[in-house]
């Protein structure tokens, strides 16, 4: 349950070692937080992360494979079993991949879409019904500006985020008036582990900035958050560029 000062008691993160996901999560941790669930593939790293939280918090590190579509919903239903509510679910797991690798191995391309789209949709769907029954809850979905208009040199990742982004927004409409709120986060290039060694795109940002912008958006009840903000303008232009120009845009 939320406390009277709006603090969250139970928070679950899918992609339990995700740098952005964790940075966002930490902005919501306060004296009233009692339980954190880290769903991750690599439970050894997950445990290292778990040890960084204050002692009064129970951190459950749960092994979770995004390609197993039943795994996310199972964790959500397990969380609902003990009569204590889930206040916030952050869906952050994703794979970026190299377009050239996807071209070389079509199965890999398909798998990326399972991880970036199918799996989050399954988890979102389970979370939405559970939170609707609770009568309250917040969900944060990590999307990307790459999904707003998909570039050809990034088409697998971009298309997979585009699918997730539109599903999340449509679900948010469906959840109107249920007490459940969804915030979709659209960062640009984020310096960090996932992009290590890559040449930064213009308007690059960092996990801390994404996290504080997300926190503020959730507090204000905003559905979509662009980080940095200027990308909303940039993409307003990109969206209306004629395809003859857009198709030549590379990062």
């Amino acid at each position: 349950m939320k406390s009277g000062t709006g603090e969250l008691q139970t928070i679950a993160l899918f992609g339990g070692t995700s740098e952005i996901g964790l940075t966002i999560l930490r902005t919501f941790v306060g004296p009233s937080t009692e339980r954190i669930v880290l769903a991750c593939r690599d439970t050894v790293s997950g445990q290292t992360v778990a040890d960084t939280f204050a002692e009064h918090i129970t951190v459950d590190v749960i092994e979770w494979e995004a390609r197993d579509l039943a795994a996310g919903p199972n964790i959500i239903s397990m969380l609902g079993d003990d009569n204590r509510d889930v206040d916030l679910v952050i869906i952050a797991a994703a794979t970026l991949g190299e377009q050239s690798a996807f071209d070389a191995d079509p199965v890999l391309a398909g798998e990326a879409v399972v991880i970036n789209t199918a799996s989050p949709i399954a988890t979102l769907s389970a979370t939405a019904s559970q939170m609707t029954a609770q009568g309250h809850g917040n969900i944060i979905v990590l999307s990307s500006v790459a999904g707003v208009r998909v570039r050809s040199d990034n088409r697998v990742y971009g298309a997979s985020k585009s699918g997730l982004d539109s599903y999340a927004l449509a679900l948010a409409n469906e959840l109107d008036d249920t007490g459940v709120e969804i915030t979709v986060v659209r960062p640009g290039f984020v310096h960090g582990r996932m992009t290590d060694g890559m040449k930064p795109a213009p308007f690059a940002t960092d996990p801390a900035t994404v996290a504080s912008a997300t926190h503020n958006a959730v507090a204000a009840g905003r559905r979509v958050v662009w980080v940095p903000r200027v990308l909303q303008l940039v993409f307003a232009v990109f969206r209306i560029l004629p395809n003859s120009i857009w198709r030549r845009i590379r990062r």
Partner: protein
Amino acid sequence: MSSGFTQVSGWGQTSPARTFLRDAQSVKELHNVLTSVGRRGAIARGLGRSYGDAAQNSGGSTIRFTDRSFSFDADRGVVTASAGATFDDIMTQIIPHGWFVPVTAGTRQITVGGAIAADVHGKNHHHDGSFGNFVHSISLLLASGDVAELDRSSHHDLFFATIGGMGLTGVILSATFDLLQVSSAMMSVRTERHGDIDSLMESMLRNDSAFRYSVAWVDGTATGKHLGRGVITHGDHASSDEVRSNHKRPSDYRSPTTIDIPPFVGAARSVRRSTSLLFSELWYRKAPKLREGQLVSIPSFFHPLDGVGHWNRLYGKNGFVQHQCVVPLDRDDVIRSILQRVSSDRPANVVNVLKRFGEGNDAHLSFPQPGWTLTVDLPVTSQLSTTLADIDEMVSSAGGRHYLAKDATTGSHSIRGGYPRLGEWQHIRHRVDPDQRWQSDLSRRLNLCATLKETE
């Protein structure tokens, strides 16, 4: 997806719940409501004067038992009331006959069900104990749909689990309780002003046993050598001799009228720091250094806040937390530390109440235990959760506890530490509600109804 849900909150207006709010006027209607209660369960609600999330149930049902009837034996001084009967109605009826409720909270706008479920205490706790002490019997609707008649000899464990049980053992249908005989509708009051907390506490310890009622208002804005300055009021029901010159007989009692704060006020403005400084200064200055034998009316002695309806809206849309704890008598240092913590945050704080509690009772979750109880009103701000976490730590490590009827923020481990009989209570509860039909936001937040394996 959302049909039939209403938003409700406690008196502090924090964490509102979307809940299926249902009224039942009779036991038959209650049974009907119960048949449609789902996995999120149900909780009873009285007049919603608890401050936090005790009388609400997000995603589930919140049931108001609206039968307000009661009967009154004017010879023996005994009332048998439906759980929905209000203290306001009861007092209006009984005072003219020379009787008074044995315990009254700081507001008349509470129900008999709410008074039992929170085992409310008043300014006479050091003298008489809490409301549960005066209750003979309770009629309780169980999760099974059966009605149990509870008293000190039959089902005594469930009787005591229900007093202070925050609605989590079932829906109280009615109860019988004793009244206190009085010979006037006036209070004889002694007022003392003290320049600091030490002198205030010392005087309270020395003098409160000579009075039935005793309480202190403490200035939460005062710091340094004025820390905890305040005003003690002691009182007794005035004798007929004392009021003769005044012509106030019990039969002169009327339930007073109120003015109301409209909803838009909270949205527009809230209590400011400057207002609270001004209020506190005036309140302190207006009190005499010492005044004895002053006659005041029952409402102005017991329920000054009832004169303004919905005064809670003055705190603005984020609401406020009313924090109430009790610490052992020899830990008066904790009271000082809390006041220091509160005044250093410089909040817009006006209502702080200090009192000495007497003996507790046999109810497992009854709040009062011997010691100092301090109540502070704190508007919700971004720093509040840290302040409260610090205060809770002080309270817990001193062996103190928090009042569930006011709580909105405490962690479950503080509650477990503060209420050593919680496990025993959970066993009794589990016996009568194995399927967790009774649930509230409070019970979920504090894990009060933990399945037994978790607590063993």
